[in-house]
Each structure stands twice: as structure tokens, then as C-alpha cells.
């Protein structure tokens, strides 16, 4: 879990358990908060430390730091989504810009008469 403490110069140091949080998520969150904090990220054995030094634009540093931590969680979630969906995304893009269907290729060209031999009695699958 994260741990927050203050340093002498007013910076906040947050420690993220590396078994829970991905480094990539922390970096992405840091990029997003670059307007409010100057951020330094360091690697240790069990945790990743992010030092947040408030910029002039940062009004409520504690609140913003809390939001930064939540953003790390959100970035983590986004990575889960990307991992699962990047293949489908590429397929969708290719399909959207293709002249013919890439998803149901057979249905584009097949003759329909043979399918009509299968009559009625639609039953739900077992």
C-alpha cells in the first residue's frame, strides 16, 4: 500500500508497493501530474518511491497528492483494458477502413441457397 510522508523542503514522498502497482502506471500518472508537481521516481526493493514537489501552480498539495495516487490506480486499470483489447482494437480499425468485411468474410461471398435447406426448428444450443 502507499505510504505518504513529507520531506524537509515540502515535498511529499509516496511509496508504492511494487507487487501491487506497476511502474508503468506510476510513470503515466506522473506525466499527467507534471503541471502540479515536479516528480522524481525511484526504484527500491519492495517499493517504488515517487517524490512530489509542488509547483507554483499547485494549490492544495495534499489533496493533489491523494488524487495522484488514485490516478496511479486508474492507469493500472487502463493497462488491464489495453492488454485485453488491443487486438480487437486493431481488428476494428482494419475492418472500419476496409472495403469488405474482415469479420464475417464468408457471409460476404457465400451463396445463400444452401443455407435455406436448414429449416425452422431453431433450438437454443445445449
Amino acid at each position, binding site marked *: 500500500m502507499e505510504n505518504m510522508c513529507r520531506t524537509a523542503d515540502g515535498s511529499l514522498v509516496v511509496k508504492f508497493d511494487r507487487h501491487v502497482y506497476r511502474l508503468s502506471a506510476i510513470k503515466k500518472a506522473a506525466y499527467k501530474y507534471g503541471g502540479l508537481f515536479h516528480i522524481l521516481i525511484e526504484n527500491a526493493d519492495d517499493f517504488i518511491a515517487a517524490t512530489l514537489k509542488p509547483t507554483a501552480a499547485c494549490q492544495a498539495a495534499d489533496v493533489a497528492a491523494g488524487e495522484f495516487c488514485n490516478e496511479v490506480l486508474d492507469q493500472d486499470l487502463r493497462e488491464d*483494458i489495453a492488454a485485453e*483489447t488491443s487486438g480487437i482494437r486493431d481488428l476494428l480499425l482494419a*475492418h*472500419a477502413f476496409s472495403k469488405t468485411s474482415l469479420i464475417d468474410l464468408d457471409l460476404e461471398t457465400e451463396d445463400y441457397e444452401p443455407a435455406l435447406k436448414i429449416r425452422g426448428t431453431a433450438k437454443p444450443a445445449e
Partner: protein
Amino acid sequence: MSTGHQHRRPPFEPRSAFSPVAFHYSLLPFRFTKLDESRYVLTNFSGDYFVTERAVLVGLVKKTLTPDSSAYVELKSRHFLIDSHNAVALQLLATQYRTKQQPLSEFTGLHMFVPTLRCDNSCFYCQASRKPSTAEGFDMTESVADRGVDFMFRSPSTVLKLEFQGGEPLLNFGILRHIVERTRALSLLNGRLVNIVICSNLSFLSDEILDFCENHEVNLSTSLDGPRKLHNLNRPNVDFDSYERTCAGITRIRERLGVQRVSALVTTTRYSLNQPNEIVDEYVKQGLVSMFLRPINPYGFASRVGTPTSYSTVEWLDFYKKALDYIIHLNLKGVRLREEYTALLLRRILTPFGTGFVDLQSPAGIGISAVLFNHDGGVYPSDEARMLAEMGDRRFCLGNLLTDSYENMMLSDVLLDSLSETMTETVPNCVDCGFQPYCGADPIRHYRLQGDIVGYKPKSEFCQRHMGLFRHLIGLLERQDESTEVLMRWLN
């Protein structure tokens, strides 16, 4: 109904025979962003959205949502998840996405012509760096105009939009007329539809000009910043009362051509910020049915620091929200008035269709959606690029009508790089922003304000403004009350 045949079929199957298997679904690509303190907005591959609390978002991703929950059904309907017997969702998503991108295949639609840089007004936020009305050497010649029209017809777009900007275009009515006549003749030959608009302060509106607009189906667009005092403060004119002229012009156009033929927009300055209702009332007073709320662009005179143009994005958003609130309130009372920027954003949020709005596209609208021909033949991929050149930075000038070919100009590196490197689908922050499907790239603005065409979005006022707008509008839509009904009517 008896036919004598008996059907021998199995009995009806219960619901459970068709229910999706619990915890057995796949995610479809989507983005998300915080909407407010307690809610998130999720947007799918084609821009459909869903608002929910974080717990549901996490449940969705961690695959703990069950088919009997209303969230599951909504998310399936809106193509955020797909389960066993629903492969057609991919087709539907791809079709919607293709529909949204369709304007891309039309290529350049908007063609702006600057007949002259001369102007009789002295609007202090003027981004055109206009010249005095008697100045010489700032008018478009016929040879430049002809080449501009030819360039326009090189675009494959089925519908073209020709817009006159300036300076004050009516100060060079001769060239304007020439361009319109030539365009109308060529559009018949080419089988194209051309919509023509003159952006004017209406000081020089005459019967001759009105006749001309009638005969050639030309529309007019003007600036009305608010009640007399505010309008004249923003847009002073040494010779006469700017507000009087504009209002007289609007009335004349309305009576001669019809209210649909004139539109007006509001440019917001620091003086406007505390008068949202008064500005809206002014539009109602002038019998206008649409208005366009616009913040100042950081170019030309408007870019000088410490002027009344400068205000924060938060201040502008506050002004916008108050004005919109009041406009909705008037609509509920039966007044017909639509805010055009809001209507545009709603179309992006609620329909699968693309909008041809140049400033909010990805890839950016520069060049591929709009192009501008300056009085001297300079070709620019947007009005902002022209402003930048007037301020001394010619980086985004594509060439000149008199010396460069269409291919060289439209395929220039500066244009193509600016397009490919700034796409919101891929640049940091935008790539995973929940509002990405509704937003756009603005390389020239970011270059101007941050020195970089991509820009650092957390510090971008463009980003901040649009996120504020999207949050506000989606919040209003979620309320599902009478305000929502008014907004829905604006889709049409």
C-alpha cells in the same frame, strides 16, 4: 387461422436457456476519465458513453459484473463488453466508427478567402492584424482569386464551403463578387454544392450587396458581442456606432433574406464575463435564433499580455455555464435560441455521425478539412496559421497560389508532420482520455502557446476548456430532466 397442419415443435425454452454465462464476457476497447467527485465517464471505440461509479468500472474490468445487473445490460448494449453470442457487436462498432470518420474522405471542405486586410473597426482582440480602411497593398487581386477558386475545386469534397474573412471583406466587394460568380459557374460544371458565407461587421451592407446575396444564395455571419456598451467596448469604430451598424445590418438581412441567412457569434472578453444573461438577452432582442459562444484566440492583437483579452479558462467556463443555463431557461419558456457550439458537441457525443468542425478533429482539421487563401496568395492550413504569419512566424505557410502547385502545398512536410504527430488517438494523455472521441488536435495553437505542436495537455488551456465543456454537458445529459430535453432538441 387453422390450416389443418399441426406444428410439432419443442415447448418454449425458459430464460435461462438464453442467458449469457456469468463472468464470461470480454472487454471491448474503451477509455475512461473522471466526470466528477463520484462518477466516471466511459467512452467506447466509436464514442458512445456511459456514466457510472468507480466500483462498476472496476467490476467491469475485473470481470465481476453479472448479466442480471442493469450495468451489464447497459454496457452490452453500448458495446463496452461482448459475450458469447454477440459477435455482431464488432460489426456495429466498426460501422459506427467508419461513419464518424466519414468526413475524412471528403477532404478539404472549408475554403477561406481573405479579399482584404483593410477594416474600419478596431476590435481590440482582432487576431487578423487588420489594416486601416484606406491602406494600400492589402487587397486580393483577380489572378490570386482565380487560382484560389481553382484550388478549391481540386478538393474531392461533394459539399464545399466558401467563407470570406478579413479584414472586412465587404471593403473589397469587387473581388468578392468575382469569386462568387466564378464559383457558382464552376460548381454547376462540376456538379458540386457550395455554401457561401461572408463574415462581416455589416458596416457596409447596401441594397446592392443584399441583392447580390439573394441572387447568389450567400449567407452572412457577424459578431455581436452583447448589449451596446459591451459590443462597442470590444469592437470600437471611429466613424460610427459599431453596435448600431451591426444591429441595423442584422435587421436588414433578416427582413430582406430571412432569419436563417444571418448568424452571429459572441467573442468573450474580460468585460463579457460578468454579463452572460445580458448578452443572451441581446440575441433574443435582435430576433436571432442561434448564437455561438467563443473564447478569444491567442493570436494577433489578442495575444498581448495584460490586455482585457486575458482571462483564465476557468473564468470562461464559468461564463459559458451561466450563459447556457440561461439559454436553456429561455428555451423552456418557449424562446427559440440554440447555442451552436453546444449543439455541435452534443452531436459528437450523442450521434454516430462525424461533424465537419475544423477545430475539433483528429487528425487535426488543418489543410485536410480547411484551407485559407490570404490576400497576397499565401496558402495556410487554418486561420490561426495565417495569424501566426502576420505576427512574424511563417512556419505553417504552405506556399503561394501564384508560385506553388496544389500537390506541393498539400503534401508539404510541415502539414503532414503536424497532422500525423498530433493525433489524439496516440499522443500522451489524449490516448487514454475518456473524452478523446469528442475532442481534437490543435497543433498550431499548442505550437503558439507552448512551443510544441503536440503540447503538454495538463497545461493546455485548449484541453482544460474542452474537458470542462464535456464534463458539463455530460453532466447535464445525465440529469435526464427538462434541460436534457432542450439539449436533445438541438441535435436536429
